[in-house]
């Protein structure tokens, strides 16, 4: 058994992404109709040209009908996928494999989530019946990810205040980036002190250490790489798609130390192998990563190989991952500035790669690494939490490999 990547066999030729935010006047149907409409317009096709659909949502609908009913699709194949917070990326991955297999010429991945209608802060959960009996020790998402902070601080000798400074810096950076993005939910820079002194939600995490709750949708159109230039002058080529679902033993195994996501390490290594990347920090032009909570982004910098073990906090405070840093991370503002409509986030990340690699990001947000000749972007999407998660890593590029 071995995994065979599909490097440069498929390309994304059209994308759409709604603004993310509190869409009180719009339903999940409205959002996905808009994202799908923008995607087909950007590829210069109609819905009739799409052969098959992969539709990602966690809790805003079940089955392919949620998409086909909204779009009134004429008897097309639609598959609903769900992989927790990596649902949007999972839809894209399936669409890419469908085209790479030769089964379809044109496939679409759509992700949507409507969270604000629930009236709850945070995720409203899934419809899967649990045991309800507390015997797995369920906690809220911010509390779950906040477990990383004291563990990281203890392992690498950071005082409580230093650790708080590091995660504050991450939130600050992503809000700076989001302020330059018309699609972001939060479009204001937030002073460091305001982030630092915000009301505490869980552990060390304040309100600004948590991604917001928002609604949104995004969509991508995938074709065979050799057909890509029929649709656009600037396709982006899929270099790597990697997904792992971990053994979920971190909450059982005392060996796991809450300073890493082993699933992310595994999926990143596989993606780099597929894409032929040996030094991600130097080769990537940008990375969109799953900053659901600020300590997550810190740990991801090490798991994705952007920083050495125990070093990421120094790179964070040194600005290495800022918009003008050596490797810009979350130049669109990330989950921090966009909120996290589950099914849409993975495709929203890809949308930023699409804009940046095509030179369509506004100048105030365009990463300088592109001018240095770099042409690769990474997206990383995570579901679950420390100790048990699914992790997705993609690498896309604006140039086909020779």
């Amino acid at each position, binding site marked *: 058994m071995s995994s065979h990547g599909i490097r440069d066999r498929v390309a994304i030729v059209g994308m759409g992404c709604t603004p993310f935010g509190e869409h009180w006047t719009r339903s999940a149907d409205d959002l996905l109709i808009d994202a799908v409409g923008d995607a087909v317009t950007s590829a210069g096709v109609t819905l009739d040209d799409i052969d098959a659909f992969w539709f990602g949502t966690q809790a805003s609908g079940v089955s392919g009908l949620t998409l086909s009913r909204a779009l009134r699709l004429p008897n097309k194949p639609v598959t609903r996928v769900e992989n927790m917070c990596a649902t949007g990326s999972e839809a894209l991955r399936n669409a890419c494999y469908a085209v790479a297999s030769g089964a379809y010429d044109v496939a679409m991945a759509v992700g949507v989530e409507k969270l604000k209608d629930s009236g709850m*802060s945070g995720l409203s959960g899934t419809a899967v019946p649990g045991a309800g009996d*507390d015997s797995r020790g369920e906690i809220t998402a911010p509390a779950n990810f906040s477990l990383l902070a004291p563990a990281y601080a203890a392992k690498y000798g950071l005082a409580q205040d230093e650790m708080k400074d590091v995660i504050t810096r991450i939130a600050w950076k992503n809000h700076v980036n989001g302020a330059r993005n018309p699609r972001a939910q939060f479009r204001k820079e937030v002073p460091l002190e305001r982030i630092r002194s915000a009301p*505490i939600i*869980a552990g060390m995490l304040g309100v600004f250490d948590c991604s917001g709750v928002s609604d949104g949708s995004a969509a991508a159109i995938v074709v065979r790489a050799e057909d890509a230039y029929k649709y656009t002058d600037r396709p982006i080529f899929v270099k790597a798609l990697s997904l792992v679902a971990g053994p979920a033993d971190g909450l*059982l195994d*005392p060996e796991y*130390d809450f300073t890493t996501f082993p699933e992310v390490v595994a999926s990143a290594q596989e993606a780099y192998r597929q894409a032929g990347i040996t030094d991600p920090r130097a080769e990537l032009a940008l990375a969109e990563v799953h900053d659901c909570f600020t300590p997550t982004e810190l740990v991801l910098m090490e798991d994705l190989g952007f920083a050495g073990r125990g070093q990421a906090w120094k790179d964070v405070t040194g600005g290495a991952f800022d918009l003008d840093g050596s490797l810009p991370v979350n130049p669109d503002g990330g989950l921090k500035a966009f909120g996290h409509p589950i099914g849409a986030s993975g495709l929203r990340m890809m949308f930023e790669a699409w804009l940046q690699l095509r030179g369509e990001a506004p100048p105030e947000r365009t990463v300088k690494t592109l001018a240095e000749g770099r042409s690769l972007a990474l997206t990383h999407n995570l579901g679950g939490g420390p100790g048990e998660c699914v992790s997705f890593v993609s690498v896309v590029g604006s140039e086909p490999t020779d």
Partner: protein
Amino acid sequence: MAGLIAYGAHVPYHRLARTDIAAALGTGAGRGTRAVAGYDEDTTSMAVEAARGALAREGLRPRIGQLFLATAAPAYLDKTNATAVHAALGLDPHVLAADMAGSVRSGLGALVTAARSPVPTLAVLSDLRTGLPGGSDESAGGDGAAAFVFGGHRNGAPVLAELLAHDTVSDEILDRWRLPGAPSSRVWEERFAEDVYVSLADQALTAALEQAGLERGAIDHLVVAGLHARACAAVRRTPGVRPEAVTPDLTGVIGNAGTAQPGLLLADVLDRAHPGEVIALLVLGDGAGVLLLRATDALPVHRAPRPVAGQIAAGGPPMPYATYLSWRGLLDREPPRRPDPEPPYAPPAHRRTRWKYGFTASACEKCGTRHLPPERVCTSCRSVDAMTDEPMQHVRGTVATFTVDRLAHTPSPPMLVVVVDYDGGGRFRCQLTDATEADAAIGARVEMTFRRTVTAAGVHNYFWKARPVRTGETEGTHG
């Protein structure tokens, strides 16, 4: 020789200062403190904690033949509460588990029934005393539980206190009563019952001493328990009993725990009685009852692992009165904007009783790896269905990491959460209770305690939490 072969007590960690009630309500609520069951405790969970103490000795659990749970504040009606205690203790399915519930006197009933039983019998007395705000039951009441095993001498389970005699006098008297569902009981004019109880106590004590062939002067520890404070005070002055034999009633520090009070007071005396000393337990309530016990040479060697005095000393700082009121359901606070907590689903809870109630994990037969919850596939060597039961109730652990969840639904926010690495292997993430945020720290030592985590949709959710290991408590040998 028949008699007491084990005992244990549970005094909740929390305390309410009576002056705080007075400050809030402008009443004269008295001095001292009362013990308060945590927001996550009820009479069932406290009964489990007391019984765990009683059964801490190796080899005792398999000997138990029947279990009675006595309480005036049953967690459920219709449904048996003793079966939850039975499940948490992991007793054999054929062991009878039954409630003696409703009246405070059921505590005496359970003790006498156990003392008379031909098979080793566990009597658990548990109560949670509540009154309307500002009332004397609220300030004088207390919460707690005690457990006693009566049986014959066997190797490894010696008799700690020989049963010399017992007697009960029953009397139908309108002294104290409560309609089902009422928040507090009603009491007749105090002078009326005082005389009646003094007479009943004399009758019971006289009868028991006659059976044992003892004079009143032979009593080394006179324990008087009952909700009628004036009557109890009068009975403590019984002529012929040496004044120094009269034991303190602990009401000043933990309050009167009603059904459990005779148990807590008896446990406290057993914690310090010397071999050969005679203990008279006198219980007032709808009559009177007496148990006469003589401590044996085995008592000093086999005292309960957690002495009552130690648990009193390890109590937390006084809690705000408003917190007490909200824990008791007398102050309805704004819930978080989160989905309502789920009640336990009956089939999964039933399938996993040994985990949910017994905290029994699994250990891989091939590589020894512990799994909490129990798993079928080993996380280490991937062996399938090669697991043995791994009891984890008594295993202590160390906090690997922690958080304070301010968004989670809990009756007493914020929720403290710890990842526990157990001595000898295994990890579990759970709530930390009887603790403040300062107690949640990497490296902190914790032990497990059985709690009612939440009540959702009319269903109590019982599960295990961690609590800090506090100094002053000895670690018992566990079976």
